[in-house]
């Protein structure tokens, strides 16, 4: 199982700032905190049922990050017959960190970046746990 990676899949919701925060947290993990151990996949490709994207999702661990209650990232993964190993809603992190308020969709601002870093830290711990212990 050593060659498995953890895919972080954000919804990237374009109409809500929490969608942008999820996207930013994803890049924080895959580019800065856990490069080489993590990756992402275009959610639109999954929506379309792209074979290569489906293969990537079904052969790796997945963590979904959703910006609104419609849970598009989680549902699009589930549509492939796979339950993500972890699923998060950005709003839950925001409720725990009300001072870290995103500013907008294009620029999430200082508050949004702080929230993104908090989320990325939690996901990094999940990445270590999944790669070490597998799905529990």
């Amino acid at each position: 199982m050593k060659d498995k990676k953890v895919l972080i899949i954000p919804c990237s919701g374009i109409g809500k700032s929490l969608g942008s925060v999820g996207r930013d947290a994803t890049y924080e993990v895959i580019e800065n905190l856990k490069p080489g151990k993590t990756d992402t996949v275009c959610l639109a490709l999954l929506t379309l049922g792209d074979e290569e994207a489906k293969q990537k999702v079904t052969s790796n661990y997945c963590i979904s990050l959703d910006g609104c209650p419609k849970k598009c990232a989680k549902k699009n993964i589930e549509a492939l017959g796979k339950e993500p190993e972890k699923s998060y809603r950005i709003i839950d992190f925001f409720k725990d960190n009300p001072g870290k308020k995103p500013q907008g969709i294009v620029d999430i601002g200082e508050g949004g970046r702080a929230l993104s870093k908090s989320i990325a830290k939690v996901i990094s711990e999940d990445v270590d746990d999944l790669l070490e212990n597998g799905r529990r």
Partner: protein
Amino acid sequence: MADLPKVKVGIVSCSGEEIPEGTISRIATMKVLNKLRPQQTSTICLPLFLAGGKEDRDFARVYPTITVDGCGKLCAKKATEKYSGKVAASINVKDFVKEGETLVNRRDLGQKELEVADRVAQEIAAQVDKVVRQRSESITFSQEEDVSSDEVSNASGTGCSCGSGDVPYLEVNVDGKKVKFFYLKEIFDFVSQDGSKSDDIAERILSLVRTYNVIDDGMENAYRDAIVKEYHAYIGGGK
């Protein structure tokens, strides 16, 4: 005189997480929604077509839609057409990258990526203007609306139409099937007051219906007959 709503255009961005062009498509789309054409545009999250309900999937039936894709896989275009409806125009960010331009930043866009995003945004805005012009040909609005800076400001960040079911509609029986027509009551009110001659009414109504709705291929005559029948029932019975 009854008013008809201004034609709005839906923009669907791929937001591709794996490549800089995905972020560019997203930023260009937001620029059009917030700054360039805030009054004429709306958007929806692409993955919502699969995860959402019937009302979300009606998006491309409610709005003439422009898709913005980051690569040749054209996910936004294909997914919109698979789950929602035919698109009015399709834009690929790759077509706006000049020879020799290398894009590397997908998180925080650098100068090069922002320049490409600007070019894409200008093209989206041009396509929006084209679609609005085409769709509005059959309507002469009673007065031009001035857009205040407050309205532009308020539009920022509110261009999302997930749950586009808040657009008013009437259901009409067409060949035994119930079909949803957006703004149909408003069209009936408009036509009943604009002085159209009775022998022009069918074409007049169909033309306006086409402005706000997709008419499926081969269904024009059936739609016309059903809608005109509904119109006469409406003005006769005050439905």
